[in-house]
């Protein structure tokens, strides 16, 4: 166990079983103090289980949870330096907003005058000045989540756990609250661990993102790394709008791997991958990097080009997705900004070429 003061949360080989069902399989990672950390993954992947293990709401089947270097695996939630914002239904319905926020302070016997000041300050921070005497059922979903946030932050604990806090809000409010959460985290400077299945939400708020699926930590990195240069095929398929293609290794060098796609040969940056000829491998290219041209048009030496037939375009408001079909039947998507002039350039069924910058493709072995 490291004793670094900068590490706020460290989980070591943490696992959780429910009878024969394994919800979390030996997960290990650490989070630095003051970081906004997102646990992102599909529903049922184990991210909420992981958060609840950190918060003390579940007892681990294996492994340890260290908070600021102290093993808290055996401690209940009220004895951990964490507070938590739940998805919904978690405000005390028989208490006013003020009493909800003051609840934790009363438990630790903070003088009433101080409680009032701290509650007012916190309600002001979350934009709910003057709502002290309202009951939870008189608040909108977004306001209720703000009260939860105030109730957690007023305790001035070092680590805040957020379990899908924006899942029950509409899309517009969710975007607003994302920015609000980020602003508040930067202001208070404590560690936030935010569980979500929404990649846009995670990319907006998080300094670092851990991808959790099937009870495992798939990949971990900065938001930009995870989005732009995913190591694992699962990450590439889950985050962003990636095209994943498979082929057989036909040649390798220190810097490049040549893949035979059956209908074309392409080169992919090797990134140190140990592959041998004849092995199967996959690579991904983000849809916004894919370019469609007419057959025979030159894209340049630094581009990889494969033949395809044009299927259709789909208008998505901000962007337009162009769908093409590769000779092996795989469909690929090229995304461009609306109004960039590429719309309606091709007819369905037209023979086209699809290309991408060689250096931007990501090789995935697992």
């Amino acid at each position, binding site marked *: 166990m490291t004793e670094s003061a900068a590490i706020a949360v460290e989980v070591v080989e943490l696992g959780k079983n429910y009878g024969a069902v394994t919800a979390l399989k030996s997960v290990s990672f650490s989070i630095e103090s003051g970081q906004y950390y997102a646990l992102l993954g599909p529903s049922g992947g184990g991210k909420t289980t992981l958060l609840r293990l950190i918060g003390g709401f579940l007892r681990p089947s294996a492994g340890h949870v260290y908070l600021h270097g102290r093993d808290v695996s055996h401690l*209940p939630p009220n004895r951990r330096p964490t507070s938590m914002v739940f998805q919904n239904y978690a405000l*005390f319905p028989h208490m006013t907003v003020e009493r909800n926020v003051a609840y934790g302070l009363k438990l630790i016997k903070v003088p009433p005058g101080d409680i009032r000041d701290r509650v007012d300050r916190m309600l002001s921070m979350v934009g709910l000045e003057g709502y002290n005497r309202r009951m939870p059922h*008189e608040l909108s979903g977004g306001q209720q989540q703000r009260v939860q946030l105030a109730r957690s932050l007023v305790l001035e604990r070092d680590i805040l756990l957020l379990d899908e806090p924006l899942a029950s809000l509409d899309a517009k409010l969710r975007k607003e609250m994302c920015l609000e959460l980020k602003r508040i985290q930067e202001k208070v400077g404590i560690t936030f661990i935010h569980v979500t299945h929404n990649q846009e939400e995670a990319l907006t708020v998080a300094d670092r993102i851990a991808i959790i699926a099937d009870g495992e930590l798939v990949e971990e990195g900065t938001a930009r790394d995870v989005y732009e240069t995913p190591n694992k095929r699962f990450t590439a398929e889950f985050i962003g709008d990636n095209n994943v293609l498979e082929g057989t290794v036909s040649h390798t060098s220190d810097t490049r791997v040549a893949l035979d796609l059956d209908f074309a040969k392409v080169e992919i940056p090797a990134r140190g991958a140990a592959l041998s000829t004849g092995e199967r491998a996959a690579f991904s290219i983000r849809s916004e990097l894919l370019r469609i041209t007419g057959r025979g048009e030159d894209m340049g030496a630094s581009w990889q080009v494969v033949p395809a037939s044009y299927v259709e375009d789909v208008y998505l408001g901000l962007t337009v997705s162009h769908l093409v079909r590769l000779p092996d039947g795989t469909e690929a998507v090229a995304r461009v900004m609306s109004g960039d002039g590429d719309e309606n350039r091709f007819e369905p069924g037209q023979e086209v070429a699809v290309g991408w910058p060689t250096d931007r493709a990501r090789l995935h072995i697992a």
Partner: protein
Amino acid sequence: MYDDFASPWNIRLKWAYLLAVVFALLMPVFYTIGISFNQHGFGARIYEFTFDWYRVVLGDTLLVVSLKWTLYLALATIAATIPMALLSAKFYKRTRRKVGFVALMLSPLFVPADIMGSSLLVFFKNLARGFAWLGDALGVSWFDGWFDLGFLTAVIGQVIYTHPYAFIVILITMSRYRVQQTEAARACGATAWQAFWHVEFPQIRVGVFSSCAFVTILSFNEAVRTALLKGGFDTFSNMLVAQMLNIGMSGESYAMAGIMSIVSMLVIGTVIVYTLVRAERLERRARAMAEPVMSS
């Protein structure tokens, strides 16, 4: 489309029908109460209002003692049933197998009172015999008398009978409560007990008190199970039934029935009125607070 509010007479007729049904159902009870206040008793042509029959009942030492026993039985049943029902309702909130659990909790209701009473009677007889045998085998007298018919066996019978009702009443009032609220309280620093007392109990208090009232009434109204399991004491219902069977309905019997009916209706009425008044008060408060916040 049919508009339910097109004619006020639709609503009035529905209310009239509802009240007529309730009145018809309660008519025999009111009739019995009426007779209990008649100096000349049942079947007399003359009606002279009197409290004499009630004075006779309350002056009868045996009946007063039976009232006391019934009260003790009710209190002991409340003490055992309410915490059990509360725990059951809490468990229901957490379990994933809700249908099976509810079926299990309500199963005592599907066994007729006389079958349940006689089954328990046989069970306790054998249990008492088993404990006596155990005492003999160990050479001690400490086990003698355990589960002999008496107050304890009567209470157990009542608990089995009243638990499903208390469970349902508490469960209904738990509808607003979510497990996340308790977890949120724990995350705020509350112990398990503080989380229950500060967050969960205030939301189900009405249900708990209603259950207490309900269990009390059921204890006063139950005759079959207690008759079979009570051993050496009599409850008020046992006395009433015995009197009816042995000497028929007397003015005293009507007064005993009257006491039970009036007390039951008063208890239930109080609970309903309290609940309605409280709900109205809360709604008024909520409406007042929902006024828009004005900037100064």
